[in-house]
């Protein structure tokens, strides 16, 4: 059964792993280059006033590659789940080959278990390798921009792509077993993937732990933009939201000041304004990765168990 | 001896005669015409089954029937062999009689009779002749 599962996957697996290998070559070469550029740019040791320019100069490198790599690793687990998960059972039911597969000498449970194991592990492995490559390649940029905690980057690094692959694959398998037609099962998996992404990103991940809130008063320095006093948000913290409150305590969206306002001369335009920042400290990054992974993988396991139960009930 | 040259079975599905009887009848005919002789092996059940796409039990039944008639005997593990023919001493007379018949048929043809007419004429004469014989 292992042989058969692999044989049925072979063409697609070779294609995907081949593409990954090609991408790996590209990323290894450019990633190495990026590391040298980082060392040479002096961004990390910058302490002069124009650090912003140095940073911008560094970020300009490989901008195009970076801008397409992100979306690719973001949707890759979904695509994998849709194309490897949904057809796994649905195609056999739709084409009638289940009548051949289920009348050999292996039980239906073993048939499904082997297929899920072979295809699932192959899919998780390729996603894991892809994530490893992208995380490694992005680490120079992540180090300077400190953006890995916030969406969408959170989903594009480390454990999350693999967790999403597990979730989407398991959903695909269950959809295939229930719907019994390949294209509708794939469509259902796509919808579930999008829905789950929205729910996780907007609601579950930000609330894995109670976010911290800090309020600071706005102060206008002699020159330059207004700053918020009080505790500083660290560069690696994830800012979930920032809300401005006016002197009356009500939230405002922006502060409009024209040059000939009386407060401009006294630098008191921002007096009474406060900003409340809701955030998660950077130290929560890895706990969040693990917990989100736990949720997605837990759901995946439950869905696979359901698939086994439904399949067995169709038998004697 | 290449037994396949001795006899080949065929099945007429529209004759209304059950398959195993047809097989028996064809063996009878082969024996009468001397196509099968004592010691010849009948085709194996497998060969007949493959050639005719019929139930092996049908062939077994036919061979058993022939065995009961004392015409063949089965040697387990080897095959089924003819032990008695249906020819009598008239077999030597077959060849010249066949030639006479062919001559007659040629004459009938030249006289303008077609195949159906020749057969009808023969059957009619034979029936009358056989009736006379009995009387």
């Amino acid at each position, binding site marked *: 059964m292992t042989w058969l599962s692999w044989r049925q996957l072979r063409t697609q697996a070779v294609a995907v792993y081949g593409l990954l290998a090609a991408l790996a070559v590209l990323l290894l070469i450019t990633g190495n280059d990026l590391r040298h550029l980082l060392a040479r740019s002096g961004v990390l040791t910058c302490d002069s006033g124009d650090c912003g320019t140095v940073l911008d100069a560094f970020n300009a490198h490989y901008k195009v590659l970076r801008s397409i790599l992100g979306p690719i690793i973001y949707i890759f687990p979904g695509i994998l789940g849709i194309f490897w998960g949904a057809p796994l059972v649905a195609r056999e039911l739709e084409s009638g*080959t289940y009548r051949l597969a*289920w*009348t050999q000498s292996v039980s239906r449970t073993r048939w499904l278990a082997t297929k899920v194991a072979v295809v699932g592990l192959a899919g998780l492995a390729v996603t894991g390798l892809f994530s490893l490559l992208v995380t490694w390649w992005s680490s120079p940029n992540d180090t300077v921009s400190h953006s890995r905690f916030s969406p969408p980057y959170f989903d594009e690094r480390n454990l999350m792509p693999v967790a999403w692959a597990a979730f989407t694959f398991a959903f695909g398998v269950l959809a295939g077993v229930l719907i019994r037609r390949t294209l509708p099962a794939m469509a259902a998996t796509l919808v579930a993937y999008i829905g789950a992404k929205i729910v996780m990103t907007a609601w579950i991940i930000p609330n894995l732990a109670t976010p911290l809130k800090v309020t600071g008063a706005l102060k206008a320095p002699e020159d330059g933009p207004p700053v918020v006093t009080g505790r500083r948000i660290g560069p690696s913290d994830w800012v979930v939201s920032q809300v401005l409150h006016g002197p009356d305590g009500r939230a405002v969206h922006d502060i409009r000041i024209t040059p000939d306002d009386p407060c401009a001369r006294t630098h008191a335009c921002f007096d009474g304004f406060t900003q409340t920042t809701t955030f998660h400290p950077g130290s929560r990054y890895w706990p969040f990765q693990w917990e989100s992974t736990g949720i997605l993988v837990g759901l995946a396991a439950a869905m696979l168990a359901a698939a086994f139960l439904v399949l067995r009930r169709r038998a004697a | 001896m290449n037994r396949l040259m001795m006899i080949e079975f065929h099945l007429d599905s529209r004759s209304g005669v059950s398959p195993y009887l047809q097989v028996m009848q064809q063996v009878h005919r082969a024996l009468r015409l001397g196509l099968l002789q004592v010691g010849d092996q009948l085709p194996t059940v497998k060969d007949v089954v493959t050639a005719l796409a019929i139930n092996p039990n049908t062939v077994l039944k036919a061979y058993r029937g022939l065995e009961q008639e004392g015409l063949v005997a089965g040697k387990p593990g080897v095959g089924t062999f003819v032990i008695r023919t249906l020819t009598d001493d008239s077999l030597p007379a077959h060849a010249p009689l066949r030639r006479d018949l062919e001559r007659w048929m040629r004459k009938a043809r030249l006289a303008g009779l077609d195949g159906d007419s020749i057969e009808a004429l023969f059957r009619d004469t034979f029936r009358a002749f056989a009736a006379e014989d009995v009387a």
Partner: protein
Amino acid sequence: MTAALEAAGLGKRFGKRWALQDCTVAVPTGSICGLVGPNGAGKTTLIQLAVGLLAPTAGSITVAGGTPDGRPAQLAKVGFVAQDTPTYAQLTVADHLRLGAHLNPGWDAALAGRRIDQLGLDPKQKAGKLSGGQRAQLALTLAVAKRPEVLILDEPVASLDPLARRDFLSSLMELVTEHGMTVLLSSHLVADLERVCDHLVVLVASRVQVASDVDELLATHRRISGPRRELSTLPADQQVIEASHTDRQTTAIIRTAQPIHDPAWSVTELTLEDIVLAYMAHRGDGQPVRRQLAEVRAS
């Protein structure tokens, strides 16, 4: 001799509709049993219950002494060729044999290889590119090379041309002669079955109409015709299967164990096809069809 397949009160319902009901049959071990009936009669349902692709709604079924519950030991005893002989289009002939070897502990690789050679199939050919007849032969090879006790085929020759059909049945008979399995073969083409089957089950409108030895069917069914009369006057042991009347004449197909003594009837024997068609003309409620024929007037 125990039965290779035994069903008792077997039934299967889909939603509100009974696809099969009150099915009680016993297929003798070593026989070649034909399962005939019109399309939609329940043949595929019965077969899928026998191989474990469906579970019964009512009653029970045992095949080769076991329940078709999907256990590997049970699956190994039954070889199955499904309707339209499904194969994996992208896998080659050799791949299919590997499939058989990996998925069946009882796989006879020598037998499978011999058959593929005999059939002249190219091992490297993809199954999707084979002709219908070749695919059917491949499916038959897969089913037989696992050395089952019972071989079940669901309309294997329905979509084949006459030559391919003949070759398939010929192969099947050859394999049965060699290996002695019990065969259950469904078809809606009766003519093929007469030379191949020694046992017959007729299924019409989800019910079994008759299940019997072929020789017994041929011996007990007759066509009788004579002057017109009501068939309820027939003796009790003469069961009317099908009847038709003209103004002057009655013709009926009856089943009886006793000789027919009534001199008013002219009695003829029937072919298996005649008998099966008579049963297939039954309405679902078991009543024979009575037809009033217009009398043919001599001109």
